[in-house]
Protein backbone atom coordinates (compact mmCIF):
# COMPACT_ATOMS: atom_id res chain seq x y z
CA UNK A 1 0.00 0.00 0.00
CA UNK A 2 1.17 3.53 -0.75
CA UNK A 3 2.31 5.86 2.02
CA UNK A 4 0.04 8.48 3.51
CA UNK A 5 -0.31 11.51 1.31
CA UNK A 6 0.12 15.17 2.13
CA UNK A 7 -2.85 16.83 3.82
CA UNK A 8 -4.26 19.39 1.43
CA UNK A 9 -7.45 20.31 3.27
CA UNK A 10 -10.60 21.63 1.63
CA UNK A 11 -10.33 22.34 -2.08
CA UNK A 12 -12.40 23.50 -5.03
CA UNK A 13 -12.64 22.20 -8.56
CA UNK A 14 -11.28 25.04 -10.68
CA UNK A 15 -13.39 26.11 -13.63
CA UNK A 16 -13.12 29.27 -15.69
CA UNK A 17 -16.50 30.34 -14.34
CA UNK A 18 -15.09 30.19 -10.81
CA UNK A 19 -11.94 32.18 -11.48
CA UNK A 20 -13.40 35.23 -9.76
CA UNK A 21 -14.36 33.26 -6.66
CA UNK A 22 -10.90 31.73 -6.51
CA UNK A 23 -9.24 35.12 -6.87
CA UNK A 24 -11.38 36.89 -4.31
CA UNK A 25 -11.63 34.16 -1.70
CA UNK A 26 -8.26 32.47 -1.95
CA UNK A 27 -7.96 32.41 1.82
CA UNK A 28 -10.91 30.05 2.09
CA UNK A 29 -9.68 27.62 -0.57
CA UNK A 30 -6.88 25.29 0.47
CA UNK A 31 -6.15 23.75 -2.91
CA UNK A 32 -7.47 23.40 -6.45
CA UNK A 33 -8.23 20.53 -8.75
CA UNK A 34 -8.14 21.17 -12.49
CA UNK A 35 -9.37 19.02 -15.35
CA UNK A 36 -6.25 17.47 -16.82
CA UNK A 37 -7.42 17.64 -20.42
CA UNK A 38 -8.08 21.38 -20.20
CA UNK A 39 -4.33 21.87 -19.97
CA UNK A 40 -2.69 18.70 -21.26
CA UNK A 41 -2.00 19.83 -24.83
CA UNK A 42 -2.93 23.45 -24.26
CA UNK A 43 -1.13 26.42 -25.77
CA UNK A 44 1.58 28.03 -23.70
CA UNK A 45 -0.44 31.00 -22.47
CA UNK A 46 -3.03 28.70 -20.92
CA UNK A 47 -0.26 26.64 -19.37
CA UNK A 48 1.21 29.87 -18.01
CA UNK A 49 -2.12 30.67 -16.37
CA UNK A 50 -2.08 27.23 -14.79
CA UNK A 51 1.44 27.87 -13.57
CA UNK A 52 0.26 31.07 -11.91
CA UNK A 53 -2.50 29.16 -10.15
CA UNK A 54 0.01 26.55 -9.03
CA UNK A 55 2.11 29.34 -7.57
CA UNK A 56 -0.77 30.25 -5.29
CA UNK A 57 -2.37 26.90 -4.51
CA UNK A 58 -1.49 23.23 -4.55
CA UNK A 59 -3.01 22.07 -7.84
CA UNK A 60 -4.02 18.50 -8.67
CA UNK A 61 -4.78 17.41 -12.26
CA UNK A 62 -7.92 15.31 -12.47
CA UNK A 63 -8.33 13.46 -15.74
CA UNK A 64 -11.42 12.35 -17.61
CA UNK A 65 -9.89 10.82 -20.74
CA UNK A 66 -7.13 8.45 -19.66
CA UNK A 67 -9.55 5.57 -20.14
CA UNK A 68 -7.46 3.21 -18.08
CA UNK A 69 -10.20 0.62 -18.47
CA UNK A 70 -9.89 0.42 -22.24
CA UNK A 71 -8.24 -2.65 -23.68
CA UNK A 72 -4.50 -2.25 -24.20
CA UNK A 73 -2.10 0.15 -22.58
CA UNK A 74 -2.74 3.80 -21.80
CA UNK A 75 -1.78 6.04 -24.74
CA UNK A 76 1.93 6.80 -24.41
CA UNK A 77 1.60 10.31 -25.81
CA UNK A 78 -1.08 11.08 -23.24
CA UNK A 79 1.02 9.61 -20.45
CA UNK A 80 4.15 11.55 -21.39
CA UNK A 81 2.17 14.77 -21.54
CA UNK A 82 0.55 13.99 -18.20
CA UNK A 83 3.93 13.39 -16.58
CA UNK A 84 5.17 16.72 -17.93
CA UNK A 85 2.08 18.54 -16.67
CA UNK A 86 2.28 17.00 -13.21
CA UNK A 87 5.95 17.88 -13.00
CA UNK A 88 5.41 21.41 -14.30
CA UNK A 89 2.95 22.30 -11.54
CA UNK A 90 4.57 20.09 -8.93
CA UNK A 91 1.26 18.36 -8.27
CA UNK A 92 1.11 16.35 -5.05
CA UNK A 93 -0.81 13.67 -6.93
CA UNK A 94 -3.00 13.15 -9.98
CA UNK A 95 -6.22 11.28 -10.52
CA UNK A 96 -8.56 9.71 -13.04
CA UNK A 97 -11.50 7.32 -13.08
CA UNK A 98 -12.06 3.59 -12.79
CA UNK A 99 -13.83 3.33 -16.09
CA UNK A 100 -13.40 3.34 -19.83
CA UNK A 101 -14.29 6.24 -22.11
CA UNK A 102 -13.51 4.69 -25.47
CA UNK A 103 -12.92 1.52 -27.40
CA UNK A 104 -10.82 1.15 -30.50
CA UNK A 105 -13.68 2.44 -32.67
CA UNK A 106 -15.92 4.52 -30.42
CA UNK A 107 -15.26 7.51 -28.21
CA UNK A 108 -18.09 7.65 -25.70
CA UNK A 109 -16.87 10.85 -24.10
CA UNK A 110 -18.25 9.77 -20.77
CA UNK A 111 -17.17 7.56 -17.91
CA UNK A 112 -18.55 4.12 -18.70
CA UNK A 113 -18.69 1.20 -16.28
CA UNK A 114 -16.39 -1.75 -16.66
CA UNK A 115 -17.25 -5.42 -16.56
CA UNK A 116 -16.55 -6.04 -12.89
CA UNK A 117 -14.60 -9.27 -12.97
CA UNK A 118 -11.47 -10.32 -11.13
CA UNK A 119 -9.53 -10.52 -14.39
CA UNK A 120 -10.42 -6.95 -15.32
CA UNK A 121 -9.61 -5.77 -11.78
CA UNK A 122 -6.21 -7.44 -11.90
CA UNK A 123 -5.44 -5.89 -15.26
CA UNK A 124 -6.52 -2.47 -14.04
CA UNK A 125 -4.29 -2.77 -11.00
CA UNK A 126 -1.32 -3.58 -13.21
CA UNK A 127 -2.03 -0.64 -15.50
CA UNK A 128 -2.54 1.73 -12.59
CA UNK A 129 0.86 0.77 -11.21
CA UNK A 130 2.40 1.39 -14.60
CA UNK A 131 0.74 4.79 -14.92
CA UNK A 132 1.86 5.78 -11.45
CA UNK A 133 5.43 4.69 -12.19
CA UNK A 134 5.46 6.53 -15.51
CA UNK A 135 4.18 9.79 -14.05
CA UNK A 136 6.21 9.55 -10.89
CA UNK A 137 3.56 10.82 -8.46
CA UNK A 138 0.79 9.11 -6.50
CA UNK A 139 -2.12 8.10 -8.71
CA UNK A 140 -5.64 8.21 -7.31
CA UNK A 141 -8.46 6.23 -8.91
CA UNK A 142 -12.03 7.46 -8.59
CA UNK A 143 -15.33 5.59 -8.42
CA UNK A 144 -17.73 6.76 -11.12
CA UNK A 145 -21.46 7.30 -11.32
CA UNK A 146 -22.92 4.60 -13.53
CA UNK A 147 -26.44 4.20 -14.80
CA UNK A 148 -25.93 0.92 -16.64
CA UNK A 149 -25.60 -1.61 -13.87
CA UNK A 150 -23.97 -4.55 -15.60
CA UNK A 151 -24.88 -7.91 -14.11
CA UNK A 152 -21.31 -8.65 -13.12
CA UNK A 153 -19.79 -11.21 -10.76
CA UNK A 154 -18.43 -8.52 -8.44
CA UNK A 155 -20.21 -5.62 -6.84
CA UNK A 156 -18.70 -2.20 -7.42
CA UNK A 157 -17.18 -2.19 -3.94
CA UNK A 158 -15.71 -5.67 -4.41
CA UNK A 159 -14.32 -4.62 -7.77
CA UNK A 160 -12.64 -1.53 -6.32
CA UNK A 161 -11.22 -3.57 -3.47
CA UNK A 162 -9.86 -6.09 -5.96
CA UNK A 163 -8.22 -3.36 -8.07
CA UNK A 164 -6.60 -1.94 -4.94
CA UNK A 165 -5.28 -5.41 -4.10
CA UNK A 166 -3.27 -5.31 -7.29
CA UNK A 167 -1.74 -1.84 -7.04
CA UNK A 168 -0.37 0.57 -4.48
CA UNK A 169 -2.39 3.52 -5.71
CA UNK A 170 -4.86 5.47 -3.62
CA UNK A 171 -8.57 6.04 -3.94
CA UNK A 172 -10.42 9.19 -4.78
CA UNK A 173 -13.78 8.43 -3.25
CA UNK A 174 -16.59 10.45 -4.79
CA UNK A 175 -19.24 10.39 -2.10
CA UNK A 176 -21.81 12.03 -4.36
CA UNK A 177 -21.30 9.21 -6.86
CA UNK A 178 -21.59 6.67 -4.06
CA UNK A 179 -24.81 8.27 -2.86
CA UNK A 180 -26.32 8.37 -6.36
CA UNK A 181 -25.27 4.83 -7.25
CA UNK A 182 -26.62 3.49 -3.96
CA UNK A 183 -30.01 5.10 -4.57
CA UNK A 184 -30.18 4.23 -8.28
CA UNK A 185 -29.10 0.63 -7.86
CA UNK A 186 -30.45 -0.08 -4.42
CA UNK A 187 -27.45 -0.88 -2.27
CA UNK A 188 -26.32 0.27 1.14
CA UNK A 189 -23.59 2.94 0.93
CA UNK A 190 -22.33 2.01 4.36
CA UNK A 191 -21.94 -1.57 3.20
CA UNK A 192 -19.89 -0.19 0.30
CA UNK A 193 -17.60 1.52 2.82
CA UNK A 194 -17.31 -1.79 4.68
CA UNK A 195 -15.84 -3.46 1.61
CA UNK A 196 -13.49 -0.94 0.05
CA UNK A 197 -10.12 -0.30 1.73
CA UNK A 198 -11.09 3.05 3.26
CA UNK A 199 -7.57 3.56 4.57
CA UNK A 200 -6.52 4.03 0.92
CA UNK A 201 -8.86 6.98 0.43
CA UNK A 202 -6.66 10.03 -0.08
CA UNK A 203 -9.25 12.40 -1.44
CA UNK A 204 -13.00 12.82 -1.41
CA UNK A 205 -15.23 14.48 -3.99
CA UNK A 206 -18.34 16.27 -2.76
CA UNK A 207 -21.07 17.55 -5.07
CA UNK A 208 -24.76 17.91 -5.55
CA UNK A 209 -26.79 16.29 -8.29
CA UNK A 210 -30.37 15.91 -9.42
CA UNK A 211 -32.60 13.69 -7.35
CA UNK A 212 -34.71 11.32 -9.41
CA UNK A 213 -38.45 11.63 -9.01
CA UNK A 214 -41.21 9.14 -9.74
CA UNK A 215 -38.87 6.25 -10.32
CA UNK A 216 -36.41 8.18 -12.47
CA UNK A 217 -32.73 7.79 -11.84
CA UNK A 218 -30.86 10.40 -9.86
CA UNK A 219 -28.21 12.17 -11.91
CA UNK A 220 -24.68 13.30 -11.19
CA UNK A 221 -24.78 16.91 -12.40
CA UNK A 222 -22.32 18.78 -10.18
CA UNK A 223 -24.92 21.50 -10.34
CA UNK A 224 -26.10 21.99 -6.76
CA UNK A 225 -24.91 22.39 -3.20
CA UNK A 226 -23.69 19.27 -1.45
CA UNK A 227 -26.76 17.51 0.00
CA UNK A 228 -27.02 16.37 3.60
CA UNK A 229 -26.86 12.71 2.60
CA UNK A 230 -23.39 13.25 1.17
CA UNK A 231 -22.23 15.15 4.25
CA UNK A 232 -23.43 12.23 6.36
CA UNK A 233 -21.39 9.87 4.21
CA UNK A 234 -18.36 12.09 4.76
CA UNK A 235 -18.92 11.93 8.49
CA UNK A 236 -19.20 8.17 8.27
CA UNK A 237 -16.02 7.90 6.23
CA UNK A 238 -14.11 10.17 8.60
CA UNK A 239 -15.25 8.09 11.51
CA UNK A 240 -13.44 5.19 9.87
CA UNK A 241 -10.31 6.82 8.54
CA UNK A 242 -8.42 10.08 8.20
CA UNK A 243 -8.61 11.68 4.76
CA UNK A 244 -5.99 14.17 3.52
CA UNK A 245 -8.22 16.16 1.19
CA UNK A 246 -11.79 16.96 0.23
CA UNK A 247 -12.94 18.74 -2.90
CA UNK A 248 -16.13 20.58 -3.81
CA UNK A 249 -17.08 20.00 -7.45
CA UNK A 250 -19.29 22.40 -9.37
CA UNK A 251 -19.67 22.25 -13.15
CA UNK A 252 -22.96 24.02 -13.80
CA UNK A 253 -25.52 26.29 -12.17
CA UNK A 254 -22.67 28.37 -10.87
CA UNK A 255 -24.13 30.46 -8.06
CA UNK A 256 -24.12 34.25 -8.45
CA UNK A 257 -23.35 34.48 -4.77
CA UNK A 258 -20.26 32.46 -3.87
CA UNK A 259 -21.47 32.12 -0.27
CA UNK A 260 -22.94 28.68 -1.01
CA UNK A 261 -19.68 27.30 -2.38
CA UNK A 262 -17.63 28.92 0.36
CA UNK A 263 -19.95 27.52 3.01
CA UNK A 264 -19.46 24.02 1.59
CA UNK A 265 -15.69 24.56 1.55
CA UNK A 266 -15.73 25.70 5.17
CA UNK A 267 -17.96 22.84 6.19
CA UNK A 268 -15.65 20.27 4.60
CA UNK A 269 -12.63 21.84 6.27
CA UNK A 270 -14.34 21.77 9.64
CA UNK A 271 -15.14 18.09 9.12
CA UNK A 272 -11.53 17.29 8.28
CA UNK A 273 -10.30 19.06 11.41
CA UNK A 274 -12.86 17.57 13.74
CA UNK A 275 -11.47 14.65 15.69
CA UNK A 276 -13.79 11.72 15.23
CA UNK A 277 -13.67 8.37 16.92
CA UNK A 278 -15.08 4.94 16.20
CA UNK A 279 -15.29 2.15 18.67
CA UNK A 280 -13.50 4.37 21.18
CA UNK A 281 -10.34 4.69 19.10
CA UNK A 282 -9.40 8.22 18.09
CA UNK A 283 -8.38 8.55 14.47
CA UNK A 284 -5.23 10.42 15.35
CA UNK A 285 -5.99 13.71 13.66
CA UNK A 286 -5.40 16.91 15.57
Amino acid at each position, binding site marked *: MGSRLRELGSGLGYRAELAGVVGEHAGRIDWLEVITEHY*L*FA*PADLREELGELAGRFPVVPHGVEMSIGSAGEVDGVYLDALAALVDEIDAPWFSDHLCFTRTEDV*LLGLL*APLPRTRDVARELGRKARRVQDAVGRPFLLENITY*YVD*LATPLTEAQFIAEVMEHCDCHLLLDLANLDINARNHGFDPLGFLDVIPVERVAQVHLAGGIDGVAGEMSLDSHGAAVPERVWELLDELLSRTAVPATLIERDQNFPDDPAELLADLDRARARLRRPLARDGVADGRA
Partner: protein
Amino acid sequence: MGVREALSGVLTRAEDLAMLRENPAALRRRYGLTEAELAMLAGAPLTGFHVTRQNVRRKLARKITSYLPATVAELEASHPALLAGFLAATVRRPQPGEGVTGSWEAERLVAWIDGRVSASLSDFARYELARVSLTTDRRAAGAARAARDTGPPDTGAGGAGRLRVSAAVRVAVFDHDVTVGGPPGLLPLRYTSVLLKRGWGTPAVRAFRVGEGTVSLLARCDGSRDAAQVVAAAGGDRGQTAAMLDRLIAARVVLATTGEEDRCESVRSSNTHPSRVG
Protein backbone atom coordinates in the same frame (compact mmCIF):
# COMPACT_ATOMS: atom_id res chain seq x y z
CA MET B 1 -14.12 -7.52 -28.88
CA GLY B 2 -16.05 -7.94 -25.68
CA VAL B 3 -18.35 -6.29 -23.17
CA ARG B 4 -16.81 -2.83 -23.52
CA GLU B 5 -17.22 -2.81 -27.29
CA ALA B 6 -20.76 -4.17 -27.07
CA LEU B 7 -21.70 -1.63 -24.41
CA SER B 8 -20.25 1.17 -26.53
CA GLY B 9 -22.31 -0.07 -29.46
CA VAL B 10 -25.50 -0.22 -27.44
CA LEU B 11 -24.86 3.30 -26.16
CA THR B 12 -24.22 4.81 -29.58
CA ARG B 13 -26.18 2.75 -32.13
CA ALA B 14 -29.94 2.32 -31.99
CA GLU B 15 -29.55 -0.90 -33.93
CA ASP B 16 -27.40 -2.43 -31.19
CA LEU B 17 -29.77 -1.35 -28.45
CA ALA B 18 -32.66 -2.94 -30.34
CA MET B 19 -30.57 -6.08 -30.77
CA LEU B 20 -29.93 -6.27 -27.04
CA ARG B 21 -33.66 -6.05 -26.37
CA GLU B 22 -34.97 -8.24 -29.14
CA ASN B 23 -32.21 -10.49 -30.40
CA PRO B 24 -29.39 -10.79 -27.85
CA ALA B 25 -27.92 -13.76 -29.70
CA ALA B 26 -27.23 -11.48 -32.67
CA LEU B 27 -25.53 -8.99 -30.39
CA ARG B 28 -23.46 -11.83 -28.99
CA ARG B 29 -22.34 -12.80 -32.47
CA ARG B 30 -21.61 -9.24 -33.54
CA TYR B 31 -19.29 -8.62 -30.62
CA GLY B 32 -17.97 -12.13 -30.09
CA LEU B 33 -19.33 -12.29 -26.55
CA THR B 34 -19.23 -15.30 -24.31
CA GLU B 35 -22.46 -16.40 -22.69
CA ALA B 36 -21.30 -14.83 -19.41
CA GLU B 37 -20.46 -11.55 -21.13
CA LEU B 38 -23.83 -11.38 -22.83
CA ALA B 39 -25.48 -12.06 -19.48
CA MET B 40 -23.76 -8.98 -18.02
CA LEU B 41 -25.40 -6.79 -20.64
CA ALA B 42 -28.73 -8.57 -20.85
CA GLY B 43 -29.07 -8.55 -17.09
CA ALA B 44 -28.72 -4.79 -16.78
CA PRO B 45 -31.96 -2.81 -16.45
CA LEU B 46 -32.77 -1.00 -19.70
CA THR B 47 -33.38 2.34 -17.99
CA GLY B 48 -29.66 2.69 -17.40
CA PHE B 49 -28.92 2.31 -21.10
CA HIS B 50 -31.42 5.01 -21.99
CA VAL B 51 -30.04 7.45 -19.41
CA THR B 52 -26.48 6.81 -20.54
CA ARG B 53 -27.36 7.17 -24.23
CA GLN B 54 -28.77 10.60 -23.41
CA ASN B 55 -25.60 11.42 -21.52
CA VAL B 56 -23.46 10.42 -24.51
CA ARG B 57 -25.35 12.98 -26.60
CA ARG B 58 -25.18 15.54 -23.82
CA LYS B 59 -21.40 15.16 -23.66
CA LEU B 60 -21.13 15.58 -27.41
CA ALA B 61 -23.31 18.69 -27.21
CA ARG B 62 -21.11 20.09 -24.47
CA LYS B 63 -17.99 19.43 -26.51
CA ILE B 64 -19.23 21.17 -29.65
CA THR B 65 -20.65 24.03 -27.60
CA SER B 66 -17.26 24.61 -26.02
CA TYR B 67 -15.79 25.08 -29.50
CA LEU B 68 -18.67 26.71 -31.35
CA PRO B 69 -20.85 28.45 -28.76
CA ALA B 70 -22.49 30.97 -31.09
CA THR B 71 -23.11 28.44 -33.85
CA VAL B 72 -24.67 25.95 -31.44
CA ALA B 73 -26.80 28.68 -29.87
CA GLU B 74 -28.10 29.62 -33.32
CA LEU B 75 -28.78 25.98 -34.17
CA GLU B 76 -30.63 25.50 -30.88
CA ALA B 77 -32.74 28.55 -31.60
CA SER B 78 -33.41 28.09 -35.30
CA HIS B 79 -32.63 24.48 -36.19
CA PRO B 80 -33.19 22.34 -33.06
CA ALA B 81 -34.20 19.25 -35.05
CA LEU B 82 -31.08 19.52 -37.19
CA LEU B 83 -28.88 19.78 -34.13
CA ALA B 84 -30.64 16.85 -32.49
CA GLY B 85 -30.14 14.89 -35.69
CA PHE B 86 -26.43 15.57 -35.61
CA LEU B 87 -26.16 14.51 -31.98
CA ALA B 88 -28.10 11.33 -32.68
CA ALA B 89 -26.22 10.41 -35.83
CA THR B 90 -22.69 11.19 -34.75
CA VAL B 91 -20.57 8.44 -33.29
CA ARG B 92 -17.38 9.98 -32.02
CA ARG B 93 -14.14 8.30 -33.02
CA PRO B 94 -11.10 8.11 -30.77
CA GLN B 95 -8.33 10.45 -31.81
CA PRO B 96 -4.86 9.33 -30.78
CA GLY B 97 -2.32 11.42 -28.92
CA GLU B 98 -3.10 15.11 -28.85
CA GLY B 99 -6.36 14.39 -30.63
CA VAL B 100 -7.88 13.56 -27.27
CA THR B 101 -8.38 17.29 -26.80
CA GLY B 102 -8.93 18.14 -30.46
CA SER B 103 -11.79 19.72 -32.37
CA TRP B 104 -12.88 16.70 -34.44
CA GLU B 105 -16.49 16.96 -33.28
CA ALA B 106 -16.71 20.66 -34.10
CA GLU B 107 -15.27 20.02 -37.55
CA ARG B 108 -17.89 17.32 -38.08
CA LEU B 109 -20.69 19.69 -37.09
CA VAL B 110 -19.47 22.37 -39.48
CA ALA B 111 -19.40 19.82 -42.28
CA TRP B 112 -22.80 18.44 -41.23
CA ILE B 113 -24.67 21.73 -41.41
CA ASP B 114 -23.17 22.73 -44.76
CA GLY B 115 -26.04 22.69 -47.22
CA ARG B 116 -28.57 22.09 -44.46
CA VAL B 117 -28.65 25.64 -43.11
CA SER B 118 -28.32 29.05 -44.70
CA ALA B 119 -25.01 29.79 -46.37
CA SER B 120 -24.65 32.65 -43.92
CA LEU B 121 -24.79 30.38 -40.87
CA SER B 122 -22.53 27.89 -42.56
CA ASP B 123 -19.98 30.64 -43.20
CA PHE B 124 -20.24 31.83 -39.63
CA ALA B 125 -19.68 28.31 -38.30
CA ARG B 126 -16.49 28.03 -40.34
CA TYR B 127 -15.39 31.41 -39.07
CA GLU B 128 -15.99 30.39 -35.47
CA LEU B 129 -14.13 27.13 -36.03
CA ALA B 130 -11.21 28.99 -37.59
CA ARG B 131 -11.01 31.25 -34.55
CA VAL B 132 -11.08 28.42 -32.03
CA SER B 133 -8.61 26.37 -34.05
CA LEU B 134 -6.16 29.25 -33.93
CA THR B 135 -6.81 29.76 -30.23
CA THR B 136 -5.88 26.17 -29.41
CA ASP B 137 -2.97 25.96 -31.88
CA ARG B 138 0.19 25.60 -29.80
CA ARG B 139 2.47 26.75 -32.60
CA ALA B 140 0.40 29.89 -33.04
CA ALA B 141 0.60 30.58 -29.32
CA GLY B 142 4.36 30.07 -29.48
CA ALA B 143 4.58 32.63 -32.27
CA ALA B 144 2.46 35.04 -30.22
CA ARG B 145 4.81 34.61 -27.28
CA ALA B 146 7.83 35.19 -29.50
CA ALA B 147 6.21 38.39 -30.75
CA ARG B 148 5.59 39.51 -27.17
CA ASP B 149 9.10 38.69 -26.00
CA THR B 150 11.10 40.36 -28.77
CA GLY B 151 11.53 43.98 -29.64
CA PRO B 152 10.05 45.81 -32.61
CA PRO B 153 10.87 44.17 -35.91
CA ASP B 154 13.04 45.75 -38.55
CA THR B 155 10.88 47.16 -41.27
CA GLY B 156 11.68 48.51 -44.66
CA ALA B 157 10.77 46.60 -47.72
CA GLY B 158 14.43 46.25 -48.56
CA GLY B 159 15.17 44.26 -45.37
CA ALA B 160 17.07 41.02 -45.48
CA GLY B 161 15.57 37.58 -45.14
CA ARG B 162 12.86 35.64 -46.89
CA LEU B 163 9.37 36.55 -45.79
CA ARG B 164 6.60 34.34 -44.57
CA VAL B 165 3.35 34.73 -42.75
CA SER B 166 3.63 34.27 -38.98
CA ALA B 167 2.39 31.02 -37.49
CA ALA B 168 0.17 33.24 -35.34
CA VAL B 169 -1.81 34.28 -38.43
CA ARG B 170 -4.51 32.68 -40.57
CA VAL B 171 -6.22 34.21 -43.56
CA ALA B 172 -9.64 32.99 -44.59
CA VAL B 173 -12.19 34.14 -47.12
CA PHE B 174 -15.96 33.97 -46.84
CA ASP B 175 -18.94 34.71 -49.07
CA HIS B 176 -20.57 36.55 -46.17
CA ASP B 177 -19.24 39.29 -43.97
CA VAL B 178 -18.67 37.29 -40.81
CA THR B 179 -17.14 40.25 -39.02
CA VAL B 180 -20.21 42.47 -38.74
CA GLY B 181 -21.90 40.77 -35.82
CA GLY B 182 -25.63 40.19 -35.60
CA PRO B 183 -27.52 36.96 -36.16
CA PRO B 184 -25.18 34.37 -37.73
CA GLY B 185 -27.93 33.28 -40.08
CA LEU B 186 -28.48 36.75 -41.50
CA LEU B 187 -25.01 38.01 -42.36
CA PRO B 188 -24.71 40.28 -45.39
CA LEU B 189 -23.73 38.55 -48.60
CA ARG B 190 -20.36 40.20 -49.16
CA TYR B 191 -17.12 38.51 -50.15
CA THR B 192 -14.90 39.06 -47.13
CA SER B 193 -11.29 38.26 -46.38
CA VAL B 194 -10.40 37.96 -42.72
CA LEU B 195 -7.00 37.93 -41.11
CA LEU B 196 -7.02 36.16 -37.76
CA LYS B 197 -4.11 36.86 -35.45
CA ARG B 198 -3.28 34.92 -32.33
CA GLY B 199 -2.21 37.09 -29.43
CA TRP B 200 -0.72 36.16 -26.11
CA GLY B 201 -3.32 35.92 -23.38
CA THR B 202 -6.70 37.58 -23.72
CA PRO B 203 -8.21 38.09 -26.23
CA ALA B 204 -6.55 35.11 -27.77
CA VAL B 205 -7.58 35.93 -31.33
CA ARG B 206 -8.31 39.21 -33.06
CA ALA B 207 -9.99 39.39 -36.47
CA PHE B 208 -9.26 41.99 -39.13
CA ARG B 209 -11.06 42.44 -42.39
CA VAL B 210 -8.46 42.82 -45.13
CA GLY B 211 -8.54 43.67 -48.81
CA GLU B 212 -7.71 41.56 -51.82
CA GLY B 213 -4.33 43.29 -52.16
CA THR B 214 -3.30 42.27 -48.67
CA VAL B 215 -4.43 38.69 -49.24
CA SER B 216 -2.49 38.56 -52.49
CA LEU B 217 0.60 39.99 -50.82
CA LEU B 218 0.40 37.53 -47.93
CA ALA B 219 0.10 34.64 -50.36
CA ARG B 220 3.48 35.63 -51.78
CA CYS B 221 5.09 35.63 -48.34
CA ASP B 222 5.63 31.90 -48.50
CA GLY B 223 9.24 31.71 -47.35
CA SER B 224 10.67 31.63 -50.88
CA ARG B 225 11.08 35.37 -51.51
CA ASP B 226 12.73 38.28 -49.79
CA ALA B 227 10.93 41.59 -49.47
CA ALA B 228 12.05 42.99 -52.80
CA GLN B 229 10.98 39.81 -54.56
CA VAL B 230 7.59 39.85 -52.82
CA VAL B 231 7.00 43.43 -53.90
CA ALA B 232 8.05 42.61 -57.43
CA ALA B 233 5.86 39.54 -57.58
CA ALA B 234 2.85 41.40 -56.26
CA GLY B 235 2.96 43.89 -59.15
CA GLY B 236 1.07 47.15 -59.04
CA ASP B 237 2.43 50.29 -57.44
CA ARG B 238 5.72 49.27 -55.86
CA GLY B 239 5.71 52.13 -53.37
CA GLN B 240 2.25 51.28 -52.07
CA THR B 241 3.01 47.58 -51.97
CA ALA B 242 6.25 48.16 -50.07
CA ALA B 243 4.42 50.38 -47.59
CA MET B 244 1.76 47.72 -47.06
CA LEU B 245 4.43 45.10 -46.56
CA ASP B 246 6.12 47.35 -44.01
CA ARG B 247 2.87 47.61 -42.09
CA LEU B 248 2.43 43.83 -42.11
CA ILE B 249 6.00 43.36 -40.90
CA ALA B 250 5.55 45.98 -38.17
CA ALA B 251 2.41 44.17 -37.02
CA ARG B 252 4.33 40.87 -37.05
CA VAL B 253 1.87 39.40 -39.49
CA VAL B 254 4.83 38.81 -41.80
CA LEU B 255 8.23 37.72 -40.52
CA ALA B 256 11.68 37.43 -42.01
CA THR B 257 12.67 33.77 -41.84
CA THR B 258 15.92 34.65 -40.16
CA GLY B 259 13.85 36.20 -37.38
CA GLU B 260 12.92 35.03 -33.94
CA GLU B 261 10.13 32.68 -34.93
CA ASP B 262 12.48 30.38 -36.78
CA ARG B 263 14.22 29.54 -33.54
CA CYS B 264 11.08 28.13 -32.02
CA GLU B 265 9.51 26.63 -35.09
CA SER B 266 10.91 23.90 -37.18
CA VAL B 267 7.92 23.16 -39.33
CA ARG B 268 7.20 25.33 -42.31
CA SER B 269 4.10 27.38 -41.90
CA SER B 270 1.06 26.10 -43.73
CA ASN B 271 -0.81 29.37 -43.49
CA THR B 272 0.69 31.31 -46.34
CA HIS B 273 -2.32 30.93 -48.58
CA PRO B 274 -5.78 31.97 -47.59
CA SER B 275 -8.20 29.15 -47.02
CA ARG B 276 -11.47 29.56 -48.80
CA VAL B 277 -14.19 28.94 -46.30
CA GLY B 278 -17.12 30.55 -48.00
